């Protein structure tokens, strides 16, 4: 069986690395992006889940989420907003994301949320 693919966009290298480590341990294939620009360039072969930080240097994750959710081909990619903001849930709802996770998170919550969308 092919491995499910996760794309993580976060501007902090250390957070990218640890999330990659956690998800690879769970058997996922993980790609990372420091600014989310790759999401605009994707033409096909979309990830099974997109983990998206809100505050990235110069780039607003909320804009990326709105773009994905309004794109005819990309709109079905499940987006999980990840942020240190206490109002992450409301932000996620506002931009049409499928789910949210507040930093710092428990790794079981991260794994659980990703599984929820890959096991569908």
């Amino acid at each position: 069986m092919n491995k499910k693919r996760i794309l993580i966009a976060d501007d902090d290298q250390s957070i990218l690395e640890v999330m990659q480590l956690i998800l690879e341990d769970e058997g996922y294939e993980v790609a990372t992006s420091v600014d989310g620009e790759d999401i605009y360039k994707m033409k096909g072969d979309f990830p099974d889940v997109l983990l998206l930080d809100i505050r990235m240097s110069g780039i607003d994750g909320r804009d990326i989420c709105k773009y994905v959710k309004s794109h005819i081909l990309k709109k079905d990619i499940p987006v999980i907003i990840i942020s240190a903001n206490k109002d992450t849930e409301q932000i996620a709802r506002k931009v049409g994301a499928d789910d949210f996770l507040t930093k710092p998170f428990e790794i079981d919550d991260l794994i659980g949320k990703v599984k929820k969308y890959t096991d569908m």
Partner: protein
Amino acid sequence: MIHKQRGFADHKKMIHELEHTKYALDHSAIVALTDKTGKIKYVNDKFVEISGYSREELIGKTHRVINSQYHSADFMKNLWKTILSGNIWKGEIRNKTKNGKYYWVDTTITPLLDEKGKPEQFIAIHYDITKLKDLEKQKDEFIGIASHELKTPVTSLKGYAQVLRKRFIKDGNKVAVSYMDKMDSQINKLSFLIQDLLDVTKIETGKLQFHTEIIDMNHLVKEILETMQLTTEKHLIVTQGKIKHAVFGDRERIGQVMINLISNAIKYSPKSDKIHVLLSSDTNTVKICIKDYGVGIPKEKQKHVFKRFYRVSGAKEDTFPGLGLGLYISAEIIKRHQGDMSVESTTGEGSTFCFILPTYNSTV
């Protein structure tokens, strides 16, 4: 005759002294004199200078000319109520210059009373505190940014700690797992402290937002107590009573208040084994009290516990760490839900912290 002359000389001396006082005041403060309706009768040079209006533009007008629309109707009502009843009002006001720039003044308004004791005129003495306010804003913004930045390393630290913990579990290394548990709980403490700093900044800058909904309080209390019971092996948390009415508010923030009160109850009662959570309600209010049997708070310190950065210190309490923010944040959250928080305590016997919230039915 001699007597009369002396009276005249005294009078002259008095006027001279008053002129000196006025001279000194005019050089240090912004001064305005109004009639009982608030119409400006006199302004000094400093008033003219800071407001940007000429004396002619100000005389005969009310202070509404420089109103910046910043303060609530309640704020203004309270100001007028205080001075019309003959009392002195003190506070900070944001005004607007003729050019539309804002400036802050520390203000004292003193009513000058007639023979019947009714206010005849008001004298307003202001000091420019704009720079101080700017610095305060910068400080709040800095704490906001700093605490947000602190969360990033804490997130990856927590992530790595949990990855390691999992690997130790796989290897069957129980000692290492127990160390990792301790590390994780310290990381959580650090992250709560950062969150408290962020919350305080939000309160100070008016950015604390509420996401309101109808809350089944019994359900919320049950959920919180189940979580909090896991944090203590020593204390049994016992509920008494029931809440019969729903509340309209921010579920997470009200939960945060309960978590704070219960953590405090645990923290400040290391030698007891029970914490009571007392629930009650009537058609208008819901009341929740957290009662501990711990060290208690001395009477004279009780009124300060809801103040920012206040920490009860004394020989016995020296061993309790904290930033002194939890109760301040909690009281602010309750206040902004039109509720009220209070404390009753006896040193050596324990404390009871209560908060009341309006019921949903009473607010619609």
